[in-house]
């Protein structure tokens, strides 16, 4: 199917390049995939690997629901091409618990009732895991600022901050 681009040239919108081999370690397991280059990491996790804990909220990097850890750093998986993560290690919400024991953040979110509908929660928890690893946030004020990339439309923010403080070992 062809259509006219902004510069007036006809463009082939189904360029159909060959799929690209991609190897990503997801929650400790190496996955070999063949992916179209435009597949995002988010869509790969949800649609190819059935890891639907990671949520598609806005799909434009504005809400944080898709937050995962790539090589330990929190990112928006909706804005990351899977082919560019070749060789990387990805941790999603499904990979945080170990041997059936909840991650300290997961337990803290339960303890502090840090959600209502729960849709933003996987992104909130993965983002908070990234925040703990960064070690920059010391105060509630700094937690709030460094968690601002995760929107909660239920408005559970005070409880989210309290849960993160618990996981940080703060009173």
């Amino acid at each position, binding site marked *: 199917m062809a259509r006219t*681009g902004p510069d007036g040239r006809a*463009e082939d919108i189904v360029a159909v390049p060959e799929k690209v081999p991609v190897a990503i370690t997801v929650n400790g397991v190496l996955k070999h995939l063949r992916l179209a280059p435009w597949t995002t990491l988010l869509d790969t996790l949800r649609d190819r690997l059935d890891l639907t804990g990671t949520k598609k909220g806005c799909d434009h990097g504005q809400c944080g629901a898709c937050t995962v850890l790539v090589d330990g750093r929190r990112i928006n998986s909706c*804005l990351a091409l899977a082919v560019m993560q070749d060789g990387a290690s990805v941790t999603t919400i499904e990979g945080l618990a170990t041997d059936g024991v909840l991650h300290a953040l997961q337990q803290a979110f339960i303890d502090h009732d840090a959600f209502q509908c729960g849709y933003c929660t996987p992104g909130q928890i993965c983002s908070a895991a990234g925040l703990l690893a960064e070690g920059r946030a010391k105060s509630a004020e700094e937690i709030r600022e460094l968690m601002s990339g995760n929107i909660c439309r239920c408005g559970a923010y005070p409880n989210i901050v309290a849960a993160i403080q618990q996981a940080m070992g703060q009173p």
Partner: protein
Amino acid sequence: MIGFQFSRAHDVADAVRQIATEPSAKFIAGGTNLIDLMKQDVERPLRLIDISRLPLKSVEEAANGGLRIGALVPNADLAYHPLIAQRYPMLASSILAGASAQLRNMASTGGNLLQRTRCCYFYDTATPCNKREPGSGCSAIGGLNRMHAILGASESCIATHPSDMCVALVALDATVHVAGPGGQRAIAFADFHRLPGDAPQRDTTLQASEIVTAIELPERGFPAHHTYLKIRDRLSYAFALVSAAVGLELEGNTIKDARLALGGVAHKPWRDPTAETALRGQPASPSTFARAADIVLRDAKGYEHNRFKIDLARRAVVRALTQAAAGTPQVQSSKKIA
């Protein structure tokens, strides 16, 4: 998003060679703006060239006494780099004022310079936009222009450059190093971004097939007297209505050197040498600051919804100069304006 070919660049020369083969090709590093624009059908590259693995990720001492920052240093790494925090705290602060922690982890230094405007009409392919489709008209001039430019705009475009980091970089007199088919060259930061004129489709003076390789900072970093003050609709994770980067050198209460740049007000980070000249040699006082603010805004022009930004900018300049002179820079995690 349209289908595209994907390839990886092996070195800078290979990147330059690859991008020259396809007119619509784009480099991708962090991808935080480009992927979004592709999802919106605003950018339609038929090839993406992955430069994210090129060895441009270090911050090094430069021969000029300053620092050389690789184009692929992530924004977060730059903001928290000990040498940046010590010697160029205004730059660190400006980076932490922008985007979110996740986006700063992904976004590259070079990509921050090359991000496109967030003008809503640029993003909306159903409306005319001279930046997206040259000659189609500007929907913002008679439209919803609350976020738009008050300085240096044209009949063709009133979009603003969205970066915070670039406001500090222009204030610090940084230099952009680029490589292209004709070799390497250096561009003064103030000359890197353009005013819209009658060609708003061109954001920068980067030429076809050129790639940003590094940003160089001169020695003077204003660590004692600086600030980055950002005024926005939300307290975090929002683009600036107005921002001000200030660096001062004081001797007693006399201003020996001054840097002043604004964000959120123009098609480029707005630095005003006339206002800086008016500050030099003067006492650091409210009247000096007010005069400088009047000079910066002397040619400001508002549109239906953004006239408030002229006064907002004037007050932001005075407040930022006051913060810098007092040695009490704005803290980005604090929501109180000092």
